[in-house]
């Protein structure tokens, strides 16, 4: 669901967030209008508003784990939002990473790319069965990596309450197997910087 349809219609913060995201054409490959959130991170108000909107939504949901996803091809952007949300709602932060980055014992889950597959890993023991979890990423497209994150958390016995992204295509919902998906803004389609 989009934030604007779920209590935040007309909220001026959403416009500021959308405008702060830069569109880079033909990255990483021709034909892709890349939604670059680094410009959002340069806009202190828009960055703070992004975190605040998520925090306001999740602080009273009894969430004890925030897990941040790696994104296809260009990982670690979910790390930028997840820890701030976790700190504000009093939850643990759990990074989900590409293979061989996490030391110690891990579990891993495969996910499908446009060409081929990759794997997502999480530490064994990071979460306990019964914990309520939120998965965060900056952008959802097909939902493949979010689905893999959900499977990892559920294999460790967590209850995934919701998946949250700054930018998302509504079509992504189909790949999330009934898990709620909360999105702040739609992708921008034209170059704005």
């Amino acid at each position, binding site marked *: 669901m989009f934030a604007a349809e779920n209590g935040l219609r007309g909220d001026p913060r959403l416009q500021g967030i959308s405008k702060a995201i830069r569109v880079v054409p033909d990255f*990483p490959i021709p034909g892709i209008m890349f939604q*670059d959130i680094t410009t959002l991170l340069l806009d*202190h108000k828009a*960055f703070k508003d992004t975190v605040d909107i998520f925090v306001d939504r999740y602080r009273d949901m009894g969430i004890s784990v925030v897990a941040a996803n790696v994104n296809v091809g260009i990982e670690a952007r979910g*790390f930028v*939002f997840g820890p701030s949300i976790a*700190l504000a709602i009093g939850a643990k932060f*759990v990074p989900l990473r590409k293979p061989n980055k996490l030391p110690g014992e891990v579990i891993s889950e495969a996910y499908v790319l446009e060409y081929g597959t990759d794997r997502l890993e999480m530490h064994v023991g990071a979460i306990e069965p019964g914990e309520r979890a939120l998965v965060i990423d900056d952008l959802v497209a097909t939902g493949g990596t979010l689905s893999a994150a959900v499977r990892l958390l559920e294999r460790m016995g967590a209850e995934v309450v919701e998946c949250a992204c700054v930018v998302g295509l509504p079509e992504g919902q189909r790949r999330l197997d009934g898990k709620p998906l909360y999105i702040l803004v739609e992708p921008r389609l034209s170059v704005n910087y």
Partner: protein
Amino acid sequence: MASADVKAQDPRIAGISSAIRVIPDFPKPGIMFQDITTLLLDTKAFRDTIDLFVERYKDKNISVVAGIEARGFIFGPPIALAIGAKFVPMRKPKKLPGEVISEEYSLEYGKDVMEMHVGAVQAGERALIVDDLVATGGTLSAAIRLLERVGVHVVECACVIELPELKGRERLGEKPLFVLVS
């Protein structure tokens, strides 16, 4: 030095230090890997870590927090948000879209490259560089050079952990380094 002052006086340091897990022989035999992911599972210790940095930097007129991929992205943004600064990711090659500037740096064996977006920072801005750990100081030095090339004043480098035997502090020369745990 700053880190000794913090250790002697601040009761939060003990909890932060004990929350960090050491994994032997990762990523290769002989290395004792300092794993901060266990710190992130300890809500008090993680909160204290950020608070200690924010307390130090909030009145220093810092407008830029630069975080080094990837674990610098975990600590940098909460600090930036709390002190009212921008967050600028310093990344490995080809991950940042659009126009970048690059800086090469030495590894134990070979070289690597760090990139920053053109236009992310302005000449004259005051910056803090954040990473989870300083070892040889190679990546911090590259980040300092990248920012200084575009006219930014790097006020300090801040890390959760220092490995003093690898002499990163000396490699940074005159640039101050602040750490919580050594």
